[in-house]
């Protein structure tokens, strides 16, 4: 459970103050798939950074899985981030001089897992995203869609409770975008809570719930409703090339 109450975040310079989030409140239940939409500069990324414990907030309260994050030290926040949150970025953010295997290894290293355990998790995550055969490729040797799948594998390897995806399909073509969305949905079906920022209304419609942000505030909640037309389109496109392996 992710619960924000009255969060505000202000960026200050010598000349101006920018209210990125204003009295922002949101509750995301376990296993939900929430799409966050809004115009550029509305505060979507700030919300994701605060939710992902990458930035502090000025006022309000934020509880992640029952833990009040405001009182946590950097060490505790980093640990919580490492154990509970997986990130997927628009620009993939793979480390360019590490191969895919080592990229997926990064969060597991910080968790202090044993080598054998890490190896199992890496291989399993890469299998889930269909990149087992590319594990020793460098990021530059992969297509955009493959890089994003590698990034998803990296997010999944740590078995997080929350997956925060910031425009995960923003840098890939529509076919790849559909595959990535399919993959996210499968991950969600396995119980991982997903919060996804997107500009694409089509993708947002596939989420269970939409949160629309304008000027740092939530302007619209749209609860989950089954959308038969989306499902029909997915069926027409055929089965996704990637499947989730059993845990």
């Amino acid at each position, binding site marked *: 459970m992710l619960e924000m109450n009255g969060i505000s975040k202000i960026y200050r310079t010598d000349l101006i103050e920018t209210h990125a989030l204003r009295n922002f409140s949101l509750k995301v239940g376990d296993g939900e798939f929430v799409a966050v939409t809004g115009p550029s500069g509305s505060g979507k990324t700030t919300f994701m950074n605060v939710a992902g414990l990458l*930035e502090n907030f000025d006022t309000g309260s934020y509880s992640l899985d029952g833990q009040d994050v405001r009182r946590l030290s*950097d060490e505790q926040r980093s640990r919580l981030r*490492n154990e509970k949150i997986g990130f997927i970025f628009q*620009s993939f*953010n793979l480390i360019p001089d590490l191969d895919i295997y080592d990229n997926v290894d990064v969060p597991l290293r*910080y968790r202090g897992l044993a080598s054998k355990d890490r190896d199992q998790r890496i291989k399993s995550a890469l299998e889930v995203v269909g990149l087992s055969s590319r594990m020793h490729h460098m990021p530059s040797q992969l297509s955009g869609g493959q890089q994003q799948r590698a990034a998803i594998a990296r997010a999944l390897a740590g078995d997080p409770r929350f997956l925060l995806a910031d425009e995960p399909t923003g840098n890939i073509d529509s076919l790849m975008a559909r595959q990535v969305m399919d993959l996210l949905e499968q991950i969600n079906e396995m119980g991982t809570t997903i919060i996804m920022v997107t500009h694409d209304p089509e993708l947002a419609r596939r989420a269970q719930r939409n949160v629309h942000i304008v000027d740092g505030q939530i302007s619209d909640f749209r609860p989950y409703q089954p959308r038969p037309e989306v499902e029909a389109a997915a069926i027409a496109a055929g089965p996704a090339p990637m499947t989730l392996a059993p845990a």
Partner: protein
Amino acid sequence: MLGYYFKLATRNLRRNAGLTALMIGAVALGIAVCVMTLTLYRAMSGNPIWWKDDVLYAVTMDSWDPNEAYFDDERSELPPEQLTYRDTMALLQSDIPKHTVAMHKAVGVLDTDDPAVLPERVRTRVTTADFFAAFEVPFQYGGAWSDEADRSAEPVLVLSRKMNDKLFGGQNSVGRRIRWDDREFRIIGVRDHWEPLPTFYDLNNSSLEEPEEVYIPFGWNVALEIYSAGNTNGWKPEQINTYQDFINSESIWIQMWVELPDADTRQRFQAFLDNYATEQKKAGRFQRPLNKRLTPVSQWLVDNRVVGNDDRILVGLAFAFLAVCLLNTVGLLLAKFLNGAAITGVRRALGASRRQVFQQHLVEVGVISGMGALLGLALGGLMLMGLRALYTVDPTEGGGTQAIAHVDVTSIVAALALALIATIAAGLYPAWRIGRIPPATYLKAQ
């Protein structure tokens, strides 16, 4: 995690190869200059026979000009560092010291029967036999001559190991004949490797000379009319036409050392010196206030300014240069780390804490400093070799810096420690700084 950080560090070195090379170069240059300066300073400032500091004394007496002190104003209270021949001979009569060394530098031509070996001018020390015992000079073959050989000028000499290697291929040459200045001598011993730095026992000309290649008994001075190849100073207008005139003159040219094993012998020898000086004053010599001293080695090095202010300033400048190099390295490190800030942001997002980011970058600094230290060490060695090549003109003059122109184990350890401590200290700020950057700053922009 240390192994992981080390792996990342070596990988990161390649990421900005130019920047990395600049940093390693800057550290290496600073370290090299420090290694060279410290090696020289260490060679000059050490007491190479510290364990005998309470028993070994330089003997000095003020026989100098009644109107003018021997040394300048700052050291006017000190007597001259050398003795006249006649005072030396008088002091040699005392049997109080355990060992008495009277000596001076000379140059002679060494010649063997082997026609393949050309005669060679060699640096020679004309000395009493106690030189070897008092200064604990090791022997490869044979040993020193007897006191009797000093008195009766026996034709015996000691070769250095280096000279023995050159002339006899390192074989035991004891008993073989050799000519020194056209006089036949019998080799009685071969001195083993011995390189006291500074050459405390004779600080004339240089404190960094190599020990001489040949040693002959002090008694040969008169028979062969051997003059000093070191400093000979005089203050009195005297007619010196013959060698006899020379040794009877007020010219000072002989160094004297005594070994006094306990307080009692020290007191007795001091009294002996006092009596001698008083007698000489009565006889019309020693017209300056009586000033005769027994000076231990450590004080001797200070009195003779073996380590001058210039040397200390040089060390200071070397460290200032290192500081400049390290400041540049700090800038380069910051540039390198900030260049990789986006990746650090990703690592933070994936769970790295500030502490872990700090540690990772510190290990990277350690790898850079280690490489800088190794390169600096090699550069320092080259600089010392260059120094030797620059100042070694005439081998018979000992080269001056030959003995110090190598990097010893202490220098290696000091250089490594210096590089690691200095560079890691310099890298603390960049490593800390990179950990403080909010990770979100770079995640969207990458």
